[in-house]
């Protein structure tokens, strides 16, 4: 088989920018993706396909994780997800989970790159500063706005991060009537209602059509191409250069390394289950945080006895999710006039609003100035089945017959539900990490990732602080039946860390260029590099950093960088 310049494992937000940048520069690139290659013609608004059957993710009986959580006595106990049904997969297909995101995109802020210096240590948490600054990443955030296509409207506010371009390249997507009501409430409360930047096109870009406003966005593949998935926005262009090959249904199980410690091949199972191998000068791993750590830990070699790039023992450590919580409030049609009710029922446009007024919290009750987070506001997902299935329970009792039908009618037709989602730093701790399970194996016979999901109590404190304030916004807006939840349960779709980057090879896996300290031809470009998470969804930062690292790799390949 042909030797490539670069072999990328994983085709999501971490892999796409590298594939595109290097293919455009004329290097031969191969992308190995374990999932199938779906495209716009395969994506329908089908709740069974998206959300209730394993179409975009593996069957848990074939590929699972082991999740370690504490039992009632505080002991860590592992349970295979094939037993619990708690699915930690997020989109195994070309483009990865970026196909299925909602696309609310926020940048990190300069302070997020130096949390330790700004806020000091927190006991029980492994907070560190990043080896790069916001200024180094900023040009790449801007690049993502153009390359991936981000729509929005810049609005200055006290916590706005600096930006090198004046405004977004695409105007905001269409907005729901409730957004104006939200703006007014925020004005009255002295809060800064912010238009949410979205990785969704508000007008066509090349082959990609503008958003068609079906209203079912998150969890679904996009049939118009408007959603800025790695597949739609980047990989198509990469393939068009004729320097990039994408191989779906190729599951890499090991990166083999030689006596000097360099990676020589990516070993994988093809669609028929046969073992294959690909050679390249340089390897890039971007399988999403948990699977990236798992692959490295599985890839032992003569110089890597405890797993590739793991001479520090740091691979898999300091895994991050996103802390915070969520809340819902109902707006009853019966409390409105007909016109207002009709407006409230509008389906399709986005709420597109966020609050960062509590990005930093300076409150004596919280022990001085601490890091807070971001809140995004959205309509409850219109998925019908998820709404309906919950009505069959009344506590532990089943409801059927007329009782069930009455509940269904009410849940579907009485009100619109507005929702908020709080994003806070998930503090890195010694109780949240990836290792290999000793007993559970996937369908190919490889040990699965074991994930310990401990959280820091501080995360709940911050989550509760913000939650209380969001709940007040809802009250002021006139919402009823406000219910919210702040917990330490990890949102499995917001995951990063495990291969933190840093200057010190003893305490980090990657250097500032996201190259492994102890493997000269290995890079990691998904969210694994993040030593702290910041309090926004990760995807924009993953995209931006992958473009940054791609530039470094380009310089290495051209010989201008060592």
């Amino acid at each position, binding site marked *: 088989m042909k030797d490539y310049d670069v072999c990328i494992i994983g085709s999501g937000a971490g892999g796409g920018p590298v594939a595109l940048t290097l293919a455009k520069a004329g290097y031969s690139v191969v992308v190995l993706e374990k*999932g*199938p*290659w*779906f495209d716009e*013609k*395969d994506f*329908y*608004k*089908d*709740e*069974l*396909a998206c959300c*209730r*059957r*394993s*179409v975009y993710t*593996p069957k848990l009986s074939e590929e699972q994780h082991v999740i370690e959580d504490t039992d009632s006595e505080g002991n860590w106990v592992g349970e295979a997800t094939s037993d619990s049904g708690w699915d930690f997969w997020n989109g195994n297909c070309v483009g990865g989970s970026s196909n299925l995101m909602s696309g609310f995109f926020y940048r990190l802020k300069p302070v997020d790159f130096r949390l330790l210096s700004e806020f000091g240590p927190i006991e029980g948490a492994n907070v560190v500063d990043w080896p790069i600054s916001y200024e180094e990443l900023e040009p790449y955030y801007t690049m993502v706005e153009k390359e991936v296509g981000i729509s929005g409207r810049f609005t200055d506010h006290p916590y706005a991060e600096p930006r090198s371009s004046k405004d977004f390249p695409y105007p905001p997507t269409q907005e729901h009537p409730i957004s104006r009501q939200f703006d007014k409430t925020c004005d009255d409360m002295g809060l800064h209602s912010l238009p949410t930047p979205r990785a969704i096109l508000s007008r066509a870009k090349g082959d990609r059509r503008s958003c*068609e406003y*079906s*209203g*079912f966005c998150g969890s*679904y593949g996009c*049939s118009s191409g408007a959603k800025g998935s790695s597949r739609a926005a980047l990989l198509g262009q990469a393939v068009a250069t004729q320097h990039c090959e994408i191989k*779906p*249904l190729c599951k890499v199980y090991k990166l083999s390394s030689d006596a000097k410690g360099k990676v020589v091949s990516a070993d994988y199972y*093809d*669609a*028929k289950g046969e073992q294959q191998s690909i050679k390249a000068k340089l390897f890039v791993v971007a399988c999403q945080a948990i699977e990236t750590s798992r692959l490295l830990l599985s890839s032992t070699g003569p110089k890597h006895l405890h797993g590739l790039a793991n001479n520090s023992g740091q691979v898999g450590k300091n895994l991050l999710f996103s802390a915070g919580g969520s809340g819902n409030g109902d707006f009853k049609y019966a409390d409105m006039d007909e016109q207002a009710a009709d407006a409230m*029922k509008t*389906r399709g446009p986005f709420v597109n609003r966020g609050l960062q007024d509590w990005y930093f919290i300076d409150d004596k009750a919280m022990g001085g100035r601490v890091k807070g987070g971001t809140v995004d506001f959205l309509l409850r997902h*219109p998925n*019908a*089945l998820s709404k*309906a*299935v919950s009505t*069959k329970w009344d506590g532990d*009792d*089943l409801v*059927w*017959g*007329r009782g*069930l*039908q009455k509940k*269904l*009618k009410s849940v*579907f*037709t009485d009100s619109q539900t507005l929702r908020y989602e709080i994003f806070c730093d998930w503090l890195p701790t010694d109780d949240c990490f990836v290792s290999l399970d000793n007993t559970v194996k996937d369908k190919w016979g490889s040990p699965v990732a074991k994930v310990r999901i401990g959280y820091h109590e501080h995360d709940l404190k911050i989550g509760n602080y913000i939650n209380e304030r969001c709940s007040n916004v809802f009250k002021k807006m006139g919402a009823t039946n406000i219910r919210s939840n702040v917990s330490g349960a990890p949102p499995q779709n917001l995951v990063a860390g495990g291969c933190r980057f840093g200057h010190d090879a003893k305490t980090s896996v990657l250097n500032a260029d996201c190259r492994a300290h102890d493997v000269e031809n290995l890079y990691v470009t998904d969210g694994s590099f993040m030593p702290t998470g910041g309090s926004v969804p990760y995807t924009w930062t993953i995209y931006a950093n992958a473009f940054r690292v791609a530039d470094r790799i380009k310089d290495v390949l051209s010989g201008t960088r060592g």
Partner: protein
Amino acid sequence: MTRMGLLGSLAVTYPAAALAELRLTKAEQALADHPAEWMQESVWKTLAQVQEVLFPAGEDIPGAADIGASIYLHNAIENPNADGDDKDFIFRGVGWLDGLTQQRHKKSFLQLMPQQQEEIIQAIVKSRAGRNWVSMLLTYILEALLTDPVYGGNKNGVGWQWLEHQPGYPAPAADKTWDQLLQRRYKA
């Protein structure tokens, strides 16, 4: 944008008259005159009746038969890509139901009066397995009510109309149902 037009027309309150009309469609009549072979099997006749108890028709409420709940269930559990455990469990549950009915009434479930059928379901959910069984049947009924008609339930969008639900678009094509897409995970 024809799909948008259709959505518009679906978004109105569900009228009882439309339901009556639906109940008399030719397709319905044809199916009633020449039902598929599996529908004649006693296990499926029993399941269809249990579904009707769990989701009865009302003057302006589509019941299990109206939404094609048994056709949907049959498609779902006979699908080779489906989780085979569900089929086994559902069929075993019919056995328990029959056993309990014979024990209490010396009759089959189908021969019982509506009130007796309701009481049998109430008795069944008292055990954990029985509750799981009814819960599973309810989930399939709700799927029949609200998934795209391409899967055999929700005839003409009757479930969506009743609950004033606007489905997303595009709707799944007949050759792109979940089970067909799923096979792409295994084939090059």
